[in-house]
């Protein structure tokens, strides 16, 4: 009998593969990750290279970049697949490299907010004394609309990648804390937890071995949605000129922000990064929806 039983891991994998949202979303996300990693090999040039002779050119334009180096003037033939911006930079290269920023920010925001939220949530859920204080602080933070909280943090910190990450993490943490805390509150009443307490299990072991594993599936789902919303918030911040500076690192948000002035004449400068941004967020959300339905059926019923 036991020889025919399918292991739980294989069951989960089987359900994931059968779910169309997981497959389509997952494949698209994988393609974007590959594009970001192999950006230098995809026919790109230096995304920050400016060229005064080839400014604001249409998509498909074949021109020559004149670059002044220490050895003198160098001419490089370039095909501008997506046209060039107001400084003659290649929009195609900027869009391809922009995927890196979006993914780095999305993943690091998710990792940091899940780690922080899980730790605080475990403490709040298990230690009654601290619960009231922690949750009042979290309620207060959640009362500030996420975008405005990010704005305030960006204003207080210095501009740059790290500040943007912090500004997006802080509004996300309370939501993770709430989720983890609610799971801990329901799990700690389970007989097996009470049995572990009676058997004299120490609190760190109890939390790590008996309570924490229950939070993994909901947190994977939540983490996926955090990746998507972090990518959107980063794009909004950079679009408004409050995020990653355009001269340093291209991001989809700051490419769009830069192209605003020329939108009426050169709308394509906005469309290309917008399409990549929308497809990326859409596929991460699809992956999240599918993961929620397969990994966490209780959660799926709630929403």
């Amino acid at each position, binding site marked *: 009998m036991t020889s025919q039983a399918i292991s739980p891991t294989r069951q989960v994998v089987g359900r994931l593969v059968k779910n169309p949202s997981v497959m389509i979303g997952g494949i698209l996300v994988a393609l974007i990750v590959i594009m970001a990693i192999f950006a230098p090999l995809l026919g790109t040039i230096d995304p920050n290279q400016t060229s005064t002779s080839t400014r604001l050119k249409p998509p498909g334009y074949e021109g020559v970049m004149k670059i002044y180096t220490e050895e003198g003037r160098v001419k490089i033939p370039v095909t501008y697949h997506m046209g060039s911006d107001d400084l003659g930079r290649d929009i195609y290269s900027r869009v391809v490299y922009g995927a890196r920023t979006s993914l780095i920010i999305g993943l690091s925001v998710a990792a940091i907010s899940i780690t922080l939220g899980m730790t605080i949530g475990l403490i709040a859920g298990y230690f009654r004394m601290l619960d009231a204080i922690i949750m009042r602080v979290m309620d207060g933070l959640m009362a500030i*609309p996420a975008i405005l*909280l990010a704005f305030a943090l960006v204003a207080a910190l210095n501009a740059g990648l790290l500040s943007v990450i912090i500004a997006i993490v802080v509004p996300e943490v309370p939501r993770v804390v709430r989720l983890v805390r609610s799971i801990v509150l329901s799990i700690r009443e389970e007989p097996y937890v009470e049995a572990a307490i009676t058997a004299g299990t120490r609190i760190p072991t109890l939390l790590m071995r008996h309570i924490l594993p229950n939070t993994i599936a909901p947190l994977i789902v939540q983490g996926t949605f955090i990746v998507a919303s972090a990518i*959107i918030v980063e*794009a909004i911040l950079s679009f408004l000129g409050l995020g990653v500076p355009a001269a340093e690192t291209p991001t989809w948000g700051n490419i769009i922000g830069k192209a605003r002035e020329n939108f*009426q004449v050169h709308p394509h400068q906005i469309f290309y990064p*917008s399409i990549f*941004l*929308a497809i990326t967020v859409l596929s991460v959300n699809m992956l999240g929806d599918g993961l929620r339905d397969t990994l966490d059926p209780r959660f799926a019923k709630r929403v």
Partner: protein
Amino acid sequence: MLSYLLKRLVATIPVMLVVAVFIFLLLRLTPGDPAAMIAGDYATEAQIAEIRENLGLDQSLLSQFGIWTGNILQGDLGESYFFKKTVTELIASRIEPTLSLSVLTILLTVAIAVPMGVISAYKQGSWLDRIVMGFSVIGFSIPVFVIAFGLIYVFSLQLGWLPVQGYKRLGDGVLPWLRHLILPSLALTVIFVAFIARMTRTSVLEVLGEDYIRTARAKGQTETKVLIRHALRNAAVPIVTVIGFAFAILIGGVVVTESVFSIPGLGLLTVEAVLNRDFPTIQAVVLLFSFLYVLINLLIDLSYTILDPRIRY
């Protein structure tokens, strides 16, 4: 009812206190002289000295917080040295566009999202339902400025029907006012509809399985009346709740939309304030919006008794 109202009001005090502490600390924890930060790049030495005096920077952090909160409670939000106005004046002059945009968006959203949600619940699993659900995933995924630029491209640049950007006051005529607001509120509506339609669908679906729906049908009630009077009425509480939560998303959307369409409202003010590190204005706007958010959710809680007479406080 009255005791519940009182209890809820008291419960909002710690929440607003945490918000206030956070906004207060924001400036004190940043490296540098808070007085110089508040003054911004455009203030004179004398002004900075005056601010230092007013903030009580030589006193303890706790009494500084006391002074700051005291001023706010008296309606003194400080002075913006960048805009050369008091923050109260500044906010008052920027309310109309934001209010117009938000109200129009909420009206449009409810008019589109609620029927969409009801129909897709009624025809669950049909192609119509799939389209509605697909649309709502897209609404979650596309940033509002991308939708805004798409709308500008089609309706302003290609068709030339509506202005590309700008704002006309309501006092200058209803038609110009509306013409300038159609695209911004449409852009916001796309995002907002996604949330409300999804929630409407879920709650109507739950209600449709109830016994009283079958009873209503059994006594020969038309399907429209069953849906509107019996199903929607009973699904109203969760729908209104999600409208309250989505208010935070609306605020975020308003900030971005105003900036795309150059609408001189509170959202554009916020962006300008952050770009110029105008801290008194940033603090005031964040405080104001958080207060509104808490207030709206309180009002929504209280509306439950009207929407569902079974709920009594």
